[in-house]
């Protein structure tokens, strides 16, 4: 069996803020932008594992946790996809090339793409949830021969809310990938699926006892998908989800993100579904 290698992260100073310069900005949808950044202190690139996040600090505005959306084997470009929902994310989305912001990290756990070597891979993302799983997709595609069947299921609100549309077209054109896309509401030109993501799982072939599922999106979506995978015979221990709630310090100091004995920022954001099954989709974890 070929084991897919992966870079390990190296956060030596967990609270250290490093300057990063915005090198490119791409508008993905009406409220979401992707930023490319490069390290501006002459130091090492920010190496990360798929699923990890950084704390992005816009000087004078504030700091927020944002997942890394780029390719783990190209750490020279730090990529973040951000949806403008409030003060800090609006400020991030308004940044233009040449601006310098502060970055801490990378932090948190990662998608088990190495442990899943040799297995069938099922990736299900909803909305902005495609951003945190994109590094896992890059890793799996770069080591495609190390995995069995690979399926990507993505749900979005409307066709114009779909992220990474050019890349989705590339993925759809590959014969070694099963890509299923659906939207909640179509428009006059949309010829794809309309409806929730769950029924699309019917179109995936995988060996339930030899698969790994990576789920990222609204908590209700992750719960429904995990249940459907279990119905198809998949042990829920093989299902990973990403929790994106209440992170403030990002390093286990402040307690904001605590669930039971765990901290989302350190033990998560990627966790085993089994560990959070009874709390997923509840109003507050």
């Amino acid at each position: 069996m070929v084991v897919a290698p992966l870079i390990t992260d190296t956060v030596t100073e967990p609270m250290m803020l490093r300057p990063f310069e915005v090198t490119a900005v791409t508008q993905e949808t009406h409220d979401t932008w992707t930023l490319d950044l490069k390290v501006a202190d002459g130091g090492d690139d920010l190496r990360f594992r798929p699923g990890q996040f950084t704390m992005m600090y816009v000087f004078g505005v504030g700091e927020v946790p944002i997942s890394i959306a780029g390719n783990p084997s190209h750490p020279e470009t730090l990529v973040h996809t951000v949806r403008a929902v409030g003060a800090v994310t609006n400020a991030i989305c308004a940044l233009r090339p040449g601006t310098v912001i502060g970055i801490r990290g990378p932090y948190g756990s990662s998608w088990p793409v190495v442990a899943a070597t040799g297995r069938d891979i099922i990736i299900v993302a909803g909305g902005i949830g495609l951003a945190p799983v994109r590094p896992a997709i890059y890793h799996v595609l770069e080591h495609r021969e190390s995995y069995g069947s690979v399926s990507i299921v993505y749900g979005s609100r409307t066709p114009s809310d779909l992220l990474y549309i050019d890349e989705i077209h590339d993925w759809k054109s590959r014969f070694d990938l099963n890509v299923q896309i659906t939207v909640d509401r179509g428009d006059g030109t949309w010829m794809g699926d309309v409806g929730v993501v769950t029924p699309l799982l019917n179109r995936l072939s995988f060996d339930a006892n030899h698969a790994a599922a990576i789920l990222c999106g609204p908590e209700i979506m992750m719960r429904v998908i995990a249940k459907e995978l279990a119905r198809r015979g998949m042990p829920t221990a093989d299902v990973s989800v990403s929790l994106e709630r209440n992170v403030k310090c990002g390093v286990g100091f402040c307690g904001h993100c605590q669930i039971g004995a765990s901290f989302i920022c350190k033990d998560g954001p990627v966790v085993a579904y089994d560990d959070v099954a009874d709390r997923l989709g509840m109003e507050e974890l």
Partner: protein
Amino acid sequence: MNLDAWRERSPMFEEMSDEHFAFLASLAEEREVPGGATLFRVNTPADRFYLVLEGTVALKIAGPSKPPMTIQTVGEGALLGLSWHLPPYRWQWTAETREPCRFAEFDANEVLAACETDSDFDNAMLRIIAREAGRRLHNVRIQLLDLYGRE
């Protein structure tokens, strides 16, 4: 038709006995339909139903002075057509194939005749319809939540 592979893949048939499933499968006719074809039109008699084996079908409805809009698409493993067993026995939607599709087609009159003579089979069919209707309702509720909007 041999539909055994669909017994596992489609949650609908989970509760059906082997005997009833085999009987239902014996009534199925395989049908291939090109993309862009209308399978049935809203408000016309619902005299058949389908199990989708391959491809995607759009369920459409037209609002007043608006072009038809796709409310939902159904794909492999889905039961297409619920209106054949319940009054007024008319389609609630227009169904149009999005791509070349393959179906197991069932003649509703044939299935209803079997339901009349075998109440257990009737029960099993009603459960399938209820299950599929429940599943669609659940999905539509989730769709209405606007999950991918700002949570």
